[in-house]
């Protein structure tokens, strides 16, 4: 009897020892299922071993719950009009490629890059009324003062906004603003994602904000037809500025477009990320690295001013 027990014990030991190497490597059955958080006890493990050997779909470790850091979920925007948006995106791409780009090539032969950057700064400078109204509506009076100071300095010293000494000399950084951002500041949700012809990406909320932006745009009030929808002078200036902006970003636009499997998805993600960043700057009233808690002096070397 004692010998039988000993024999059983020896047999059991041999089996346990030989059992271990089978499951010793990282991807063995035991460690494979131990990775799953639903394996809590031996019974479940045994059941799943059976499942493993049947080679059923449960053999494959599907990701469990959505992760908090999933970027596409974090920056998701409601897109019930996806069919329309994709069609409009295709139209805008064709318009950019066939019309804007060739015009931009000629445009850039006439105006060198530093001049085009200057034009973009002038266009931003002239939008002071819009930023002024929006900072007041947001209750950010300090920012209102900064916007006025920026306008004053850039219009005079900066030659009508061609240069931006307010940022580079006085650390009064630019901050984009609009009625869309004001609505967001008030807590109004974005609504759905919409792509407008030529204009590009926006949301329902920001699109409604564009109407008020139009009224606060000084170019809308240009004589002889202030507020007219199709004033040739205003349309001409808008077209000029649109082509100018396009020449400054064309290289990045083409690279992103060519390298993306789904450019629509990529540009939508970029748009929503940028919107969040703009809103973050407004809510925290911060524009530079140091305002995000980085006190390292060297950081300032990387932050000479200006928004993205």
């Amino acid at each position: 009897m004692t010998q039988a027990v000993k024999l059983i014990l020896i047999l059991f030991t041999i089996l346990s020892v030989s059992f271990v190497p089978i499951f010793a490597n990282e991807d063995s059955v035991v460690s494979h299922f131990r990775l799953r958080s639903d394996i809590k006890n031996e019974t479940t493990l045994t059941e799943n071993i059976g499942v493993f050997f049947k080679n059923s779909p449960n053999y494959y470790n599907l990701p469990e719950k959505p992760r908090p850091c999933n970027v596409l979920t974090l920056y998701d925007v409601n897109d019930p009009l996806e069919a329309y948006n994709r069609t409009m995106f295709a139209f805008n791409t064709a318009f950019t490629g066939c019309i804007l780009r060739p015009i931009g090539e000629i445009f850039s032969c006439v105006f060198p890059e530093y001049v085009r950057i200057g034009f973009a700064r002038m266009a931003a400078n002239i939008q002071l009324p819009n930023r002024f109204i929006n900072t007041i509506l947001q209750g950010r009076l300090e920012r209102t003062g900064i916007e006025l100071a920026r306008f004053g300095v850039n219009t005079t010293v900066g030659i009508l906004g061609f240069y931006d000494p307010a940022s580079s000399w006085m650390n009064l950084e630019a901050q984009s603003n609009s009625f869309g951002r004001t609505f967001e500041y008030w807590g109004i949700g974005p609504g759905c994602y919409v792509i407008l012809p030529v204009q590009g990406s926006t949301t329902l909320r920001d699109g409604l904000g564009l109407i008020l932006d139009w009224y606060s745009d000084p170019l809308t009030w240009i004589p002889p037809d202030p507020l007219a929808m199709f004033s040739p002078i205003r349309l001409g200036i808008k077209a000029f500025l649109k082509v100018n902006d396009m020449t400054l970003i064309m290289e990045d636009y083409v690279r992103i477009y060519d390298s993306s499997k789904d450019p629509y998805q990529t540009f939508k993600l970029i748009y929503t990320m940028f919107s969040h960043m703009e809103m973050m700057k407004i809510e925290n009233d911060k524009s530079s690295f140091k305002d995000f808690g980085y006190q390292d002096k060297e950081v300032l070397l990387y932050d000479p001013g200006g928004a993205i």
Partner: protein
Amino acid sequence: MKTKFFKILILLAIIMTFQSKLFAGPFNLVYYPAQDPIVNTLRSALFYPGNKQFSFMHKQFFMESNFYDQGFVYDINILKDRPSLSYKLWLQPKPANLITIIPGLGTNYTGLSLTAIAEVFYLQGYSVLAVSSVFNWEFYESASSTLTPGYTPVDSLDIYYALTKIINHLEKKYGNRIKDNILVGYSLGGLHTLYIANYESKNKDLSIGFKRYLALNPPVDMLYSLKKLDNFYLVADSWTKPEITKKIYKGMRFYRKILDKATNNTAKLPFTINEAKYIIGLSFHLSLVELLASIHERHNFGFLKAKSSWFSRNALYKEIDNYTYYDYLLTFFKKNYAQKTGKKVFLSEYNKRSGLKAIENTLKNNEKIRVIHTSNDFLLKDKDREWLKSTLGDRITFINKGGHLGYLYNDQALELICKDVKLPKKK
């Protein structure tokens, strides 16, 4: 006494003469800030095309005066019933050696770093050919014979087959403007470069006949490297949305400053280790999303439940967004190879056959191979570094800093790369 003294002197002289071989140390970069290797990896963003071929006035007045637009994009059909594969070619006006570059994980042929390396070689007098990475959606849709990339022997053969077709086509079209062929790969591309070296050494009749193989920071253990990248991305799991937005904003803003040449390249980067991890992990994660979308289009493995059509893909992308590289290996990759082989798939077994150690003999014996690595690349374990040293001997150079490819912008490192790519003069 005197004899002993002279003997000691002679011994010292011999040691000093052979010091570099006996006590081979890393290649030391000067003016390179010492920071954590993960943060230093972000310095690869400092490496972008300098567009040095164009004058200041040319750059001011022409919208597309950059090195990228100097090259031509060609399309070539690789696999039947698949879309054409696009590649980029910068051809020298006179006959020159052709360098083919295989980029890192998920990189498209339009990538900035890839264009920057191409520019360096072009300015040295080489013609340059750039293709997309095997893990890039574009290469996958056009030239991948497998439904699930990730098994290096198959992936490298896919690239090799594509390159054979491309180079044959170029040689027919441009005749004697293409002299010898050189293969350069970085990161995952470096691993594929060395596997191609292995293939060519065993199949001399069917080969393009590369005269040199240069691998920059190739991983040794695929599974270890991919898990590392996943962990980098998942560092944000405990962050809130505003925190993630801040990190992304910081990274994008810094990148904008780099492109505007408003940074001091010798100063320290203003990123913490976790921020650097997340930025690196995020960029690789986004290329995985595109790849999985392509895989799902080509074959439905049953893992993705969201319905999609041309007009509606948002839900599908959100579902794919939940996958890491390791999840991909445990699902799509495993199922594909289980169905192909009819056997149970152990990733560890595939990993052994996918790493550099599987081609150890070729690495030891092939004199055309050169490798440049860093002493602090986080994709390597210490024992991998030792193994590389013992296998490759003086054909590998370790740069003392830079993390994973963070040295590319440094002129010293570029000189070293150009030196390693140079072919010996023909007798």
